[in-house]
């Protein structure tokens, strides 16, 4: 059928260098010369095993026991002690009971002893509590220590393995549904290009997804900027996960938009997101055609780069208008609608430029940092009606846009992260699809970087 041939046509390949050094002569050569050896990452496929190999749960106490039980409930192969030489798919370290940095030694050394036994594309995930302003100094030191550990271990891991952490808000148990949804995301291939990052479980959340292979069944999602690149990947990923997708892009991109919509049996809505009535028109389309709107993905964005000294009003204002002002205006319309309720989800695409800044992108960084501010503030408004709002900040992603960067610059840019490669549009889409799941309730106000732990920024 044409559907499958279209799907396989868009299957992405690793960059040529990564392919070259991943086998045979190329691998030996790279090893001898000390060249970067990016791994071919394990990416999510529905119904594939969550992790490849047994999971070692490190930690004592109720939290660790609870987490181990959840993993067993997921039918995973769980170890409470490492067996030397046995290959591991993941290590989950539960540190929810820390109150002094001295307690970090034992679990960390246990992990260290097991590191050499990690499979390719293995996962290390910590579960701990964030340091808060009113914590006692020793408690805060211990809790914040985990941050340094995970970010460092992520840089030590090789062969596509990653380290990430789940942070538990006050009163949230280590095995709360929200924390477990974040853990599951980090263990899975969905987080292939997420490294050295944390997700906060801010409230209890609800029981997991009814169907893990098709978690978005029955939901209606709108994706802006869906005609190509990351937006098209988001639309395809949400559709794969079961959502009915309304693909939105400017009228001038309508032909690409139609191709995306048809490939996922969704609908195309040609619309400029800066139009004053954009939110109303999206709502009208969603409600009249599908009777509901559950998921909004604000992906549409533009760049108009110039050093600030050379900046003009046209460049500055258009970037602000498209990248942030439109989202604010559309969110007002969505939040004012009683139909956007229950498990409502808003996910915005930010950028590492909005976190770390980027030369020549003061306007873009303003808009993308603005998105982060908006997301954190909107979370409270949406929480009242049981919804979540999160942001995803992509790093170097292989798109038509980055393909235009000169060869040498691009080659350097894509190696400047712990995974030593550029991400794929699908990697960003997977993170967004995770936030969109019903089982991700309780995970809100997060800004998740999908950057392979880019050396720039946090």
């Amino acid at each position, binding site marked *: 059928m044409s559907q499958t041939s279209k799907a396989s046509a868009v299957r992405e390949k690793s960059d040529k260098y990564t392919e070259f050094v991943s086998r045979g002569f190329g691998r030996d050569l790279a090893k001898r010369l000390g060249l970067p050896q990016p791994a071919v990452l394990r990416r999510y496929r529905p119904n594939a095993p969550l992790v490849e190999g047994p999971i070692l749960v490190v930690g004592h106490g109720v939290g660790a026991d609870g987490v181990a039980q959840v993993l067993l409930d997921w039918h995973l192969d769980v170890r409470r002690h490492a067996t030397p030489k046995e290959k591991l798919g993941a290590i989950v370290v539960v540190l929810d009971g820390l109150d002094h940095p001295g307690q970090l030694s034992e679990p960390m050394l246990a992990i260290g002893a097991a590191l050499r036994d990690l499979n390719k594309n293995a996962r290390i995930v910590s579960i701990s509590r964030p340091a808060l302003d009113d914590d006692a100094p020793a408690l805060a030191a211990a809790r914040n220590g985990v941050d340094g550990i995970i970010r460092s271990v992520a840089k030590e891991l090789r062969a596509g393995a990653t380290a990430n952490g789940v942070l538990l808000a006050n009163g949230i148990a280590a095995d709360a549904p929200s924390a477990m949804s974040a853990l599951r995301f980090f263990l899975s291939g969905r987080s292939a290009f997420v490294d050295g990052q944390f997700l906060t479980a801010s409230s209890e959340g609800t029981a997991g997804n009814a169907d893990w292979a098709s978690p978005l069944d029955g939901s209606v999602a709108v994706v802006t900027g869906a005609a190509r690149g990351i937006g098209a990947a988001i639309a395809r990923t949400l559709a794969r996960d079961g959502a009915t997708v309304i693909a939105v892009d400017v009228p001038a991109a309508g032909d690409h938009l139609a*191709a995306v*919509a048809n490939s996922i049996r969704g609908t195309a809505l040609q619309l400029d997101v800066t139009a004053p009535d954009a939110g109303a028109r999206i709502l009208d389309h969603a409600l009249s055609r599908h*009777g509901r709107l559950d998921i909004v993905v604000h992906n549409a964005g533009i760049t108009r780069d110039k050093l600030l000294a050379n900046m003009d009003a046209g460049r500055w204002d258009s970037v602000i208008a498209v990248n942030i002002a439109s989202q604010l205006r559309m969110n007002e319309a969505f939040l004012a609608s009683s139909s956007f309720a229950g498990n409502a989800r808003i996910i915005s695409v930010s950028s590492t430029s909005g976190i770390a800044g980027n030369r020549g992108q003061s306007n873009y960084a303003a808009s993308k940092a603005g998105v982060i501010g908006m997301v954190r503030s909107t979370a409270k408004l949406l929480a009242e009606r049981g919804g979540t709002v999160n942001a995803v900040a992509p790093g170097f992603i292989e798109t038509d846009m980055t393909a235009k960067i000169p060869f040498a610059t691009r080659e350097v840019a894509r190696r400047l992260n712990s995974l030593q490669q550029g991400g794929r549009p699908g990697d960003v889409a997977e993170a967004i699809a995770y936030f969109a799941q019903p089982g991700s309730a309780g995970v809100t106000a997060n800004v998740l970087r999908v950057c392979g732990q880019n050396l720039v920024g946090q």
Partner: protein
Amino acid sequence: MTTPTAAATPGSSALPVPRKAVVVGGNRIPFARSGGAYTHSSNQDMLTAALDGLVARFGLAGEEIGEVAAGAVLKHSRDFNLAREAVLGSALAATTPAYDLQQACATGMEAVIGLSNKIKLGQIDSAIAGGVDSASDAPIAVSEGLRSILLDLSRAKTAGQKAKIIARIRPKDLTPNAPTTGEPRTGLSMGEHQALTTAQWNITREAQDELALASHQNLAAAYDRHFFDDLITPFRGLSRDSNLRADSSLEKLAKLKPAFGKALGEGATMTAGNSTPLTDGASTVLLASEEWATARELPILADVVDGEAAAVDFVHGKDGLLMAPAFAVPRLLARNGLTLDDIDYFEIHEAFAGTVLSTLAAWEDEEFGKTRLGLDGAFGTVDRSKLNVNGSSLAAGHPFAATGGRLVATLAKMLHERGTVDGRPARGLISVCAAGGQGVVAILEAR
């Protein structure tokens, strides 16, 4: 000489209509002046793109549609199954049947009316009417002499016979036949025919230029208020009709030299500015029964109320080639108990500004009304503020078979936006003239 029947066909009004056929929406690709953005696009490419845009707009990927009917005026022999081939290349289910039809520039209109009738009869629940034309990728045939030689050659058995047949080829046989807009029975081009009609009805150059300017201004304004956002899907880098001149002016139009009717000398009024250019493009319209549209939660823009075709004897009679709608509209309105005053929007295809103005003049003419239409006086006056309010073919261009679909989708959206007038649904009239002295007209009503 013969005169078209002026009165409605007796007995044709009383038949009850089993159910309604509605316009769900439409999609077209921007129209491109020939030799422009679509120079290397085939009719099949363009029709497929227009279909895919429609499918995406209404979420029909993988759906089986009751029937697709579409056609092209300039058609390659290899495109004998153009509509079906376009369906197979589109995102529609491969089990969607399709047929080609052709009624010159009225092809798109006839597709809409024919499919609507099938829906009304309950034979199908959904349909897509379409049309496409490429003046750039037009078929070129070998000369009749060479064709006859080649056919003989294919039947020859021995080398001797073949050599003898090949020896018949003369240099003049090698000149190809390119399609023209000339009428086979008069040898006159469509423009030359209209020039005669324009002069016959004393249509001034100024009036034609004013109509052309209004077309450009109205179309540009419609684009500016995003009217076409859900009617057009870009193609080959084009997102607006390439013939549109938003900055046109009466001064600029007045400077153009006459292009047709030069033999009339001072009386030559038709220029490239007030005539449609050769154009490439494709359009589609999604039609359905109310039940089909409602079950899929699709919008319903308008009802396809009724349609009518007419033809004039332009070879021997006194009517101009493109004057058939002047007879079709009175018949259609009479059958539906309506007059021109009951129409809220007029979409009169601008083959030439002179065509529209000659038709309006005929309707306002007492003599024409009495002697040709069999009325007590003039048929009536079209309120110009209701005429082609979002522009028409002079600005958008006119890919022959695609114009009907453009008109139906555009009018359906206008009517839906307007809603009701004096407590009744807003009503629109479409009138399209066609080669061979034909015309096809239709009434739509707002939903």
